[in-house]
């Protein structure tokens, strides 16, 4: 039921994830942030087993930070992607992490890039990628409308089209989505697309 997808534009990359925290038939919350800031210029959107998702992405984040302290320079996106894939591969034959990852980053030398890493440690460098049931609709919409070197406005337009498809066609569609962007100025939250807002807690 979780959807994560992403695409590369002109000098930026976007990652979008739904924000539902689901436990069997219960929706715990609708503002769960599944896109982690790996470092100043990397985003890691993850979907899958809730515990594995949190544990694994935090583990990768701390190791990326450690590399930077040890070596004085940050990892490239490609290096981070290969490291992540390596960790998944090592765990695969014993205790697999059931997490699917879309890793997006911006490197000064090579610009924006996007990596598709699934739970059995496949790694693909792509312009657009998607996970989850929403991927059926996301990939179709992106295949139809995606172009190289889109502007931020065009890309967000496409993202909204995808979200519209997921909302209208997926039987248990997640109500809310978070959009994050990474470019030369860093990785940051871009916007939320909410159709349900958690009710504010009334102070007693």
């Amino acid at each position, binding site marked *: 039921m979780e959807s994560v997808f992403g695409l590369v534009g002109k000098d930026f990359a976007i990652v979008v994830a739904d924000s539902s925290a689901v436990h069997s038939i219960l929706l715990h919350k609708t503002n769960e942030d599944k896109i982690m800031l790996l470092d100043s210029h990397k985003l890691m959107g993850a979907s899958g087993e809730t515990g594995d998702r949190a544990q694994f992405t*935090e*583990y990768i984040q*701390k*190791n990326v*930070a*450690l590399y930077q*302290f*040890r070596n004085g320079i940050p990892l490239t996106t490609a290096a981070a992607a290969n490291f992540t894939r390596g960790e998944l591969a090592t765990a695969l034959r014993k205790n697999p992490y059931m997490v699917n990852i879309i890793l997006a980053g911006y490197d000064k030398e090579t610009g924006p890039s996007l990596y598709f890493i699934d739970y059995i440690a496949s790694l693909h460098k792509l312009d657009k990628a998607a996970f989850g049931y929403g991927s059926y609709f996301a990939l179709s919409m992106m295949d139809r409308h995606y172009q190289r070197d889109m502007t931020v406005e065009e890309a967000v337009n496409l993202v909204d089209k995808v979200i519209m498809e997921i909302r209208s066609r997926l039987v248990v569609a997640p109500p809310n989505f978070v959009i994050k962007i990474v470019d030369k100025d860093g990785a940051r939250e871009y916007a939320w697309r909410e159709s349900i807002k958690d009710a504010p807690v009334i102070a007693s």
Partner: protein
Amino acid sequence: MARYDRAITVFSPDGHLFQVEYALEAVRKGNAAVGVRGTDTIVLAVEKKSTPKLQDSRSVRKIVNLDNHIALACAGLKADARVLINRARIECQSHKLTVEDPVTVEYITRYIAGLQQKYTQSGGVRPFGLSTLIIGFDPYSGVPSLYQTDPSGTFSAWKANATGRNSNSIREFLEKNYKETSGQETVKLAMRALLEVVESGGKNLEVAVMTKDHGLRQLEEAEIDAIVAEIDAEKAAAEAAKKAPPKET
């Protein structure tokens, strides 16, 4: 005494651990390092012995980051320092991973000191031959701290301290001249203390300043030269004031 200094797990009859004391000797031969804690700034200054002409001095950093809010300088065996710093950096990230909080300065100091102590009570290993000066701001309270550890594994907090070569003279200077400072005054105090034993000049000092908002900043050689010039000018003015007869008696 020669029989009691081989394996360090053995006490000598008069209660010494000779290997630990020899490690402290190694520290005393290392380059001078000074740390000063101000109200909003903490400064580390380390002596840079003359760089060989062909060596790329940027690859010899004596003041290092352990985390975004913690830095370390040391005196003694630099190779041992690399090992200790690596373990400390891993611990900083590991702590953040398990409890989702950055380490406090005291925690990481206790960890490093604990590591140094472990190597004074194990078979077949020798102690780390270095003393460290650890500075940082506590992540939530924002309080600045300066700690020192030594090869025996003891640690304590300081307002200002020195280690390495001539540390006693530097400490005497600090005891005489220490007062609560902030900002640039803290930098000057640290540099003045180090200049007591080190030749004047930007290429003989490595200075790093840590503030709560900007983390650790290594000063450029030109900046250091400028501050050294200020210090020299202040010293000259003080000398002249002493020599000139007082106008009012």
